[in-house]
């Protein structure tokens, strides 16, 4: 019996981790688009995201930035003035518009969830 309870706790942790990951997946794009309002390079953005409490894996973020660039949501520029050349990304007008739309959706979701919690 005790054995099965231990397994249950373990399963719950895993279940929570899976669902949290699902819930947060889309927020990385929104957070990037909002943060890159100020131009920044990959590693610094990773650092800022982590500090802001939106920890994301480096191997997820770097390909994501290139994908956003390909989609025209961010633009990039190589900064070769410093000793280490870095690729700086900045949210484009299109990206800003998308971020605004995503934010609106986020707010609507928040409202809906609050009313759901209030109703129950």
């Amino acid at each position: 019996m005790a054995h099965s309870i231990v397994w249950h706790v373990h399963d719950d942790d895993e279940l929570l981790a899976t669902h949290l990951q699902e819930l947060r997946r889309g927020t990385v794009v929104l957070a990037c688009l909002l943060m890159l309002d100020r131009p920044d390079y990959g590693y610094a953005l990773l650092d800022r995201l982590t500090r802001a409490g939106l920890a994301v894996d480096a191997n997820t973020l770097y390909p994501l930035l290139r994908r956003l660039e390909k989609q025209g949501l961010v633009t990039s520029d190589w900064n070769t003035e410093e000793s280490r050349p870095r690729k700086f990304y900045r949210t484009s007008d299109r990206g800003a518009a998308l971020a605004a739309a995503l934010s609106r959706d986020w707010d609507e979701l928040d409202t809906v969830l609050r009313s759901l919690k209030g109703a129950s």
Partner: protein
Amino acid sequence: MTTPATTNTLTDRYVAAVLRHLPRSRRSGSQRSEDQRPDIDIERELRASIADAVDDRVEAGADRAEAEFAVLTELGDPARLAAGYADRPLQLIGPALYLDYTRLLTALLVTIVPAVAVAVGLVQGLRGAGALDLIGDTLGAALTTAAHLVCWTTLLFATIERVAGRVTGGAAGRRTPARRWTPDALPEPPTRRARYGELIIYTVAMVLFTTLILLSPVISTETDAHGVPIGVFAPWLWQTGFVYAFIALVTLNLAVAYAKHYARWSVPLAVAGTLVEIACPIALLWLAAGDRVLNPGFTQAAAWPQSATTWINTALIVVSALTIVFAVIDGIARATRR
């Protein structure tokens, strides 16, 4: 890798491993500047990112080698990272195609394998082969057929997965659909299921047809004086290799049927599709008109009257002509519906 003087550090090896899994941009003849060549660009950025992360750890008091090791561990399998950069799917057949794949494969396996087994078993039985030979040959033929079916069907769907994915925005697009979905986005709105059923039947028929043609020289109701089977189709077809060209055309037809099902209608696809569709009947028409379909040796051995050959050739010509007409009409009808 372009690191002549330096030693091969872990980072060098990691970056090289990532780049190996990326499509290379051509070094010469390209109009692009250095910055826009994807692999060079990725290499420079990845090196900077790794160096930044290592510096950060060193500043926090870590040993440089240990920091490098930890940073690379965090980045993970280079092949996976490269797939992320190239937006390649990390699956052979994704959820979008999986059901179509299993349905077609099941349909093929439950029809073609028993058909081949029965055909081989029957012929061996008629020839008076021993029980062991009969069972062995039948099982062998069934296994070979099954292996071929699984292999080619999987290859077909893995190809669709990769080609269709490139068109519709890559692997990430399918994992997390960014666009709002409307029924307009459906390739074949309400009748898609029914059409897929047709496609399966068509595939099964084509594979069965091809299998029987290929087996016809060895599986026949007639044998010569030495007990060697006399094929029903003209040996000329095999001598000239025409039969393989014909089967290639049949395969191409099948590919067109799948392209029509999965790809959006476009003028090049429609024109190519119609050309491929009429190529088979034209070839058949030409064969029948020159009496190159049936094996005279077979009709003699089976004691068929001469009129039978004439009738079969005439029927093939009529059916081929009708097929050509219908393919053209269908092509025009599809074009005007857009």
